[in-house]
């Protein structure tokens, strides 16, 4: 590598095959206690339903399992290792105390159907978290049931639909800005709505004129992300809300970017009727390689009758319980009550911060994004100069002249010891570099990031080929995704040698 970086070096790293390649008959990592009841004859009990063989399941010992997954883990990048500037993903610090409290016996081993009398701890946690989130969003009520943001969107739109139906007709369309995340249109479709695209204006914001032109009695709701996926706050949000309401429509807010607002602005105060939160973004629950998440949906009073069942209520005797008797409810969106373990973590995060901590967190998140914008302006093309909140979006326009695309720059960033930024969207920025540092990055780490991005820009000028071939420091080089999709190999087979 031309540029020496202070951020990373190469170091010896263990190889490891597939677990099946380590298996051999007679090894095992399990042992059961002696049976304290008479043993049984499975064949006799199950007859033709008895299973005789478990096929290719592995047989390995405990130390091999420890080594297998420990070695695999060293092939991953993670927040614990460094900055993870994925735009829109809010990769912030995941506090360890959250993991400890979520594993406390009574919480980890509580059965969802155990009597309410012995579930007061879990119910109290759900109630307290709900109260905090309602206050933070400025809404009137909330459901914690959705398992992630996308399911939050689903739940929200189901309530929108139920609301309109209660008024006579479900309406036909959902308006969605072209800058929106893919889950927004995908969700609208799942709820049986047609998706109508809404063009952004020159500042990357909703074109209010266009909106008023497109808004009519066919439109059930506008799905707006605020700040939007450019990291820009929709300044005319009040006009937008009024416009929607004047035609009987509702304003849905995708709350994925709440990390820019907590403690500073409340969606409930600027006209939002329904919104989801991503506890695995704004509220620090770990991403875990892709999940689990949690996507609570906060609403205004008008939507309360339609909340999924059950809801947590305070009973006459002061204890907490579940209310299932909700005739107008949209029904359940999943079994039980949601990803409870994430509620515990999100509440622990909220208690660790308090009002002052939450506000400071938001301020630092916005400060960091603006610091990076300042550090890279000019070096990378900034398609929208509108003020930046929690994330900033550049484009690869300047580097494209040398044939280098955003994904190439992203891969080269790996050699500099960073995880790439988001490259996949927003679609309104061709070749987007979507960068969200979050509040968890120190000035030191961000200076290294800016230094790396500037160095890469230089490399693009001097030696684009090297950037196109990146990464150069990883145990595997760029992988052939086309081949993977053309002839999919989706499982290991005994025949297959490595």
């Amino acid at each position: 590598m031309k540029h020496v970086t202070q951020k990373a070096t190469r170091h010896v790293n263990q190889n490891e095959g597939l677990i099946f390649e380590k298996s051999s008959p007679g090894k095992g990592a399990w042992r059961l206690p002696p049976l304290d009841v008479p043993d049984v004859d499975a064949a006799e009990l199950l007859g033709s339903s008895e299973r005789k063989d478990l096929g290719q399941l592995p047989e390995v010992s405990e130390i091999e399992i420890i080594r297998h997954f420990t070695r695999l883990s060293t092939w991953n990048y993670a927040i614990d290792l460094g900055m993870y500037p994925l735009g829109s993903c809010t990769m912030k610090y995941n506090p360890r105390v959250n993991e400890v409290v979520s594993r406390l016996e009574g919480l980890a081993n509580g059965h969802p159907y155990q009597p309410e009398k012995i579930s007061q701890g879990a119910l109290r946690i759900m109630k307290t978290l709900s109260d905090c989130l309602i206050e933070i969003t400025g809404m009137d009520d909330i459901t914690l049931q959705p398992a992630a943001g996308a399911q939050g969107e689903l739940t929200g739109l189901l309530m929108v639909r139920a609301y309109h139906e209660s008024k006579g007709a479900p309406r036909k369309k959902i308006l969605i800005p072209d800058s929106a995340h893919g889950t927004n249109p995908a969700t609208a479709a799942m709820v049986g709505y047609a998706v109508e695209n809404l063009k952004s204006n020159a500042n990357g914001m909703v074109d209010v004129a266009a909106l008023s032109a497109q808004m009519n009695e066919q439109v059930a709701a506008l799905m707006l992300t605020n700040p939007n996926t450019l990291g820009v706050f929709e300044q005319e949000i009040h006009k937008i809300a009024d416009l929607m309401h004047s035609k009987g429509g509702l304003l849905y807010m995708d709350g994925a970017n709440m990390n820019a607002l907590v403690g500073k602005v409340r969606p409930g105060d600027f006209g939002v009727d329904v919104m989801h939160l991503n506890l695995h973004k704004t509220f620090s629950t770990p991403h875990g390689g892709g999940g689990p998440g949690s996507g609570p949906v906060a609403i205004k009073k008008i939507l309360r009758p339609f909340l999924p069942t059950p809801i947590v209520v305070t009973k006459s005797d002061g204890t907490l319980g579940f209310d299932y008797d909700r005739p107008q409810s949209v029904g359940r969106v999943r079994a039980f009550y949601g990803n409870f373990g994430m509620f515990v973590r999100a509440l622990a995060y909220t208690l660790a911060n308090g009002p002052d901590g939450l506000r400071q967190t938001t301020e630092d998140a916005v400060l960091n994004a603006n610091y990076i914008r300042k550090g890279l302006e000019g070096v990378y093309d900034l398609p929208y100069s509108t003020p930046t909140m929690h994330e900033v979006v550049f484009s690869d326009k300047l580097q494209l002249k040398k044939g280098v695309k955003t994904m190439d720059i992203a891969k080269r960033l790996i050699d500099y010891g960073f995880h790439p930024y988001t490259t996949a969207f927003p679609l309104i920025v061709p070749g987007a570099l979507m960068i969200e540092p979050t509040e968890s990055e120190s000035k030191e780490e961000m200076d290294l990031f800016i230094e790396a991005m500037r160095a890469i820009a230089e490399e693009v000028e001097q030696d684009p080929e090297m950037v196109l071939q990146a990464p150069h420091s990883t145990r595997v080089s760029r992988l052939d995704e086309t081949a993977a999709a053309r002839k999919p190999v989706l499982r290991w087979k005994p025949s297959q040698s490595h």
Partner: protein
Amino acid sequence: MRYLPKSPADRESMLKAIGVRSVDDLFAFIPAEYRLERDLKVPRQMAESEIVDWFRERSRENGDGYASFLGAGAYSHYRPVVIDALISRGEFLTAYTPYQAEVSQGTLQSIFEFQTMICELTGMEVANASMYDGSTAAAEAVMMAARLTGRRSVVIARSVHPEYREVLATYAFHQGMPLSTIGFADTGRVDIRALEKAITEDTACVLIQSPNFFGTIEDVAAIADVVHKRGAKLVVSIAEAVSLGIVEPPREADIIAMEAQSFGVPLGFGGPYCGVIATREQFVRQMPGRLVGQTTDRNGKRGFVLTLATREQHIRREKATSNICTNQALVALMVNIFMTIYGKIGLRELAKQNLAKTVYAAKSFGKHGKLLFSGAPRFNEFVIQTTEDPKAINSRGLGHKIVGGLPLKKFYPELRNASLWCCTEMTTRSSIDTAVGLVAESERSQRTTDEESAVQEVGR
């Protein structure tokens, strides 16, 4: 705030670099009337020790230390400690979805292994990782069947988990998918004759569960025949994954929608769990959720990547097979490690212990209460009918630190005073005997009260 890596000086120098006076300038763009000028009304900042104490209190209020006979879609199995030791490694815990393969091979290879093991266990050809839970997996599987067949209506067995059915109803309703429900025979199994009647030309699929909500193992082969004859797809939901250790998987199914919580995932008051969809290779492009595929790098070295993304929302938007984005990856890793620990032999032995405990319990309870659905094989759950309302028996049980079976009246009023009991390898003989004692006592007292009233009759 202890999570924030900045000193006042850092903030100052950054503001200077940006060229603003104060951090408020960065929020000036937001209309003033919407800016919050007060503190949020949430509890004050707490010390770590206070947080731990507060949740300890909640934990103590939450049924810590009871012997439980609850199953019904959430099962209490032993979790080898290796699971948490490994998933707690920051490299797994704090990584994002493995879009950047070169620095995500750990997550990717483990998912590939997960997909392989799920295929082996279910007898299917492809499996995703993952769906939110068993209920949404079932609903998404049904949508998938509709896409595969181009048909609209769905037939559901009443012996499918009631909350799974509710979720499907929610998902299907706004898609305008007509649902019909078919009942169960005295054996607890699907009423095949009713099934045959229910399937129409427009039936996209039939959804059953095996072992079903009552713990009864369905005759999947027979059901599959009926379903396939009418050109519909068979979707089988599996809520108790441990059953796969000793119960033949529903190989005749077209799609299997599974809840893998039993494989090393804490009960956690209902979540997070791990839904999985497994199916045949030919259906893969209509499958929702993430798939990892094997490929090679530029030097021909084996590696793994997320693949067939053209099914997903971030590429296809409103035409995607599902809106799912964030899934249950870390929970899938728990499941993966659990399957690896027990493996080919251990998983069968584990399932066998579940079977043995359940046989012992069902026999003992049957001596006092009425054991329903005894005509068909079952795995680790059974239904007992008592004279007294099971709620009353259970509340006495709490005094003995016993959480009794799930009263079924709410879901199945026709079964009256029936309750659903579950035994796993964690259930001790002594707790079974105690619980049986409670039922026996209840029956005795009921009988005597009957006799008394009888006597009074005579008396007149």
